[in-house]
């Protein structure tokens, strides 16, 4: 039985070898091997090129600023959500999660809509919109990571500090902050990583002079056909990501011997004006940062000339020539859903196999578990470029073409499936299986009676997330999706890049539909989790 389990790791490993290791190898080989003066010359060239160095600086700089802004908004919100009990708190918690899974391009479109509608001389492209959009996404990371710990922290030390005469802020600094430090640092590293490798948002909101390394990789490959520079930039990016992940690994190892309590025990109802002001402040922050762009997106998608109408939505069925796409935008939506469904199915099969194998604990299986995380740390653009080079040119060209986009999306979604399912699988008490075995169940039947129902519920949650990720995936998809079969994020980005109110309206309308789709899926999944899986 154990050998059978381990065999399950073979599929995911093979998948990874063909769709990750090989394509990545092709990018690196093409860019670095055989370069004059040795393989590191292109990297050195990248690091000394003033324009690319500027891009690297910008990448670092905007990621740092984005992280700071995200923490500045996220920590107060986390404080309110984990310390105070008020009507609608659960709803706010769920709503804060939604932006994180919204497709990057949709968020870009939302900020285009918001900043375009603001009067006066607001920056509509460049650094400020980028860090706002990054904070929009990642506040949920902070709320989840920091709030997740905070709500379980014993409030007694802080109360004791208050009792000794400390102001609330001082009590927080003395008694609470030190215990949250690791969680805050971990959240900061994750946010930094996400914003450092940001692509869709920067492509949409960047403009000239505001490009991340990720965008430069895309530009080098598609605009200048300079694969050597693209590959060298990928190497730089990979090194930076590896360093960040190493920091993250250290933080995680250092974390948590904190005595935890049941969440409810740490929350208290609103008592004072200050409490009410804190809630109002947190909700206000969220409304400005997350509510306003989404509201602007929806409102402006309904705005035609000086009036209101559904014309932009009706035009999604428009003749293709007008849409500057090979298909009508609505067809792109159907296309996206089909591709994401296929990607979800692939990710589920691979992720479940890997999780089941990893739960068995054999070395090969643990390898598969770890290896499946690698695509998460690799830039999506590099992945897309590698897939393009591997499967759309050379001897493998044309093979499995139809499946290339779902496979690419599955590559990115599978780690989430493993991360969702594996803890649940590991958490199943062996005694459950033993008890059922003594009742007369064969090992196979035990799996059907115990593992399957529990894992399938986790699988449902994983499927929801995988679908949301796949349907919004942009960085890899933009390379491998055929222009004749575009996905919605690709169509949105194209439309945003074209002049004219009609194209903007179309992009916004498509963004609203895609946002609604992902938001709906994630909220449904959140219900399932609260309803059942969360209790295991």
């Amino acid at each position, binding site marked *: 039985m154990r050998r059978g389990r381990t065999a399950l790791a073979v599929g995911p490993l093979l998948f990874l070898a063909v769709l990750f290791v090989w394509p990545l190898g092709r990018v690196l080989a093409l860019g670095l091997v055989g370069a004059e003066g040795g393989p590191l010359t292109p990297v050195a060239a990248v690091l000394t090129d*003033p*324009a690319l160095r500027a891009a690297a600086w910008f990448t670092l700089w905007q990621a740092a600023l984005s992280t700071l802004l995200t923490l500045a908004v996220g920590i107060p919100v986390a404080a309110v959500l984990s310390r105070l009990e008020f009507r609608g708190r659960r709803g706010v918690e769920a709503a804060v999660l939604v932006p994180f899974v919204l497709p990057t391009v949709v968020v870009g479109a939302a900020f285009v809509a918001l900043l375009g509608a603001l009067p006066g001389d607001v920056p509509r492209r460049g650094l400020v919109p980028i860090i706002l959009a990054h904070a929009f996404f990642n506040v949920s990371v902070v709320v989840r990571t920091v709030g997740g710990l905070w709500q379980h922290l014993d409030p007694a030390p802080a109360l004791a500090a208050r009792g000794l005469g400390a102001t609330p802020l001082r009590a927080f600094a003395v008694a609470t902050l030190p215990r949250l430090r690791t969680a805050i640092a971990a959240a900061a590293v994750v946010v930094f990583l996400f914003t450092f490798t940001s692509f869709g948002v920067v492509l949409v909101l960047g*403009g*000239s002079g505001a490009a991340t390394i990720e965008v430069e990789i895309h530009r080098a*490959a*598609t*605009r*200048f*056909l*300079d694969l050597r520079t693209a590959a060298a930039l990928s190497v730089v990016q990979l090194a930076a990501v590896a360093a960040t992940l190493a920091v993250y690994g250290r933080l995680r190892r250092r974390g948590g011997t904190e005595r935890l309590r049941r969440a409810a025990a740490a929350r208290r109802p609103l008592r004072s004006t200050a409490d009410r002001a804190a809630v109002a402040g947190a909700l206000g922050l969220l409304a400005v940062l997350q509510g306003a762009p989404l509201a602007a997106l929806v409102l402006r998608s309904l705005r035609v000339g000086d009036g209101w109408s559904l014309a932009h939505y009706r035009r999604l069925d428009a003749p*293709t*020539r007008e849409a*500057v*796409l*090979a298909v009508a935008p609505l067809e792109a939506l*159907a*296309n996206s*859903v*089909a*591709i994401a*469904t*296929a990607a979800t*199915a692939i990710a589920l099969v691979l992720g479940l196999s890997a999780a089941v194998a990893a739960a068995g604990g054999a070395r090969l299986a643990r390898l598969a578990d770890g290896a499946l995380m690698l695509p998460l740390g690799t830039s999506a653009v590099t992945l897309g470029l590698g897939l*393009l*080079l591997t*499967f*759309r*040119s*050379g001897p493998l*060209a*044309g093979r499995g*073409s*139809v*499946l290339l986009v*779902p496979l690419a999306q599955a590559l990115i979604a599978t780690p989430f499936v493993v991360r969702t399912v594996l803890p649940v699988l590991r958490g199943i008490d062996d005694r459950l299986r033993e008890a059922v075995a003594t009742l007369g169940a064969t090992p196979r039947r035990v799996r059907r009676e115990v593992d399957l129902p529990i894992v399938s519920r986790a699988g449902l949650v994983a499927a929801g997330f995988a679908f949301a990720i796949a349907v919004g995936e942009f960085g890899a998809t933009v390379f491998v999706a*055929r*222009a*004749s*079969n575009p996905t919605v994020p690709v169509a949105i980005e*194209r439309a945003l890049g*074209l*002049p004219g109110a009609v194209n903007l309206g179309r992009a916004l309308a498509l963004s609203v539909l895609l946002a609604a789709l992902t938001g709906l899926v994630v909220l449904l999944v959140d219900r399932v989790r609260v309803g059942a899986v969360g209790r295991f």
Partner: protein
Amino acid sequence: MRRHHALAAAAALLLAGCGSEGPRTVTLLTHDSFDVSEDVLAAFEDEHGLRVEVVPLGDAGAALNIVALTADDPGGDVLFGVDSTFLTRALAADVFLPHVAADLDAVDPAFLPPDDRVTPVDFGDVCVNYDVAWFAARDLAVPRTLTDLADPAYRGLLAVQNPATSSPGLAFLLGTIERLGEAAAFDLWADLRANDLLVTDGWTDAYYGAFTHAGGGDRPLVVSYASSPPAEVLFAEEPLDAAPTGVLLETCHRQIEYAGVLRGARDVEAARLLVDLLISPAFQADLPTSMFVFPVRTDVALPEVFAAHAVLPDRPVVMEPARVDAGREAWIARFDAVVLR
């Protein structure tokens, strides 16, 4: 159980996406500016029993690069829209099959390339356009040459596009180098910068944003096309007798657009027919009003609005594709250093 249904549905959708019912499809990969009258395509489809799928891939540079990156499986049969700026790149990437188009002898010999893998389809000049009324109102002489633009009299009047991000921007930069030589050209660019030059990311920003005539901006001089004046007439809200904009003929740089049968085509035979369509009289006659470019055939009459309002330089300037290819990257970087930093 339910999951099986979902999988089946997904599979069905995927299969539907690549179904092969109906007539043979021939796919034209092109840039976003591609346009043609429906009846021209319809007649072609009827005649050959084909369906033409038009797939825009982004701007001209992006379209070629995507095809070059996927040369063995480009997902189309014909690529249209490789301009002279990128011709050598296309030939080096070896994306095309040799093809001698029917009717090639009707094409102006001046446009014929040295290579039988590409077929010229149209041409156009990128030139500085000016707002006729603006200069008339101020009684200011319209500049004539490139070097005139650096004259302090025209300070703060010119808008160009970034050659790194804009196809006409690149064409214009190449034109300055071709006309003046590299050293003098970048001296000029330094002077232009000192003369308060405006650089935009794309043509739209410049023409519909900064240009006094079309965009309500404050720049009466803008890099655009020689065909822009007839377009202004054609799309004027009220009929016009004279074009409201003019072209500085001595600033022009010519771009020729080519098409070719893709090496990775699925249906080479249909692809050849499609390339032939692109230089057929019907398509060529449709070019000026659909894409605002000029036909390469000498035996096609220009529409009236073009005949009346379009001007073309007598001695066009075209940079050799090989020279473009050798210098492009370095010149873009130098532009960046001289003008933008």
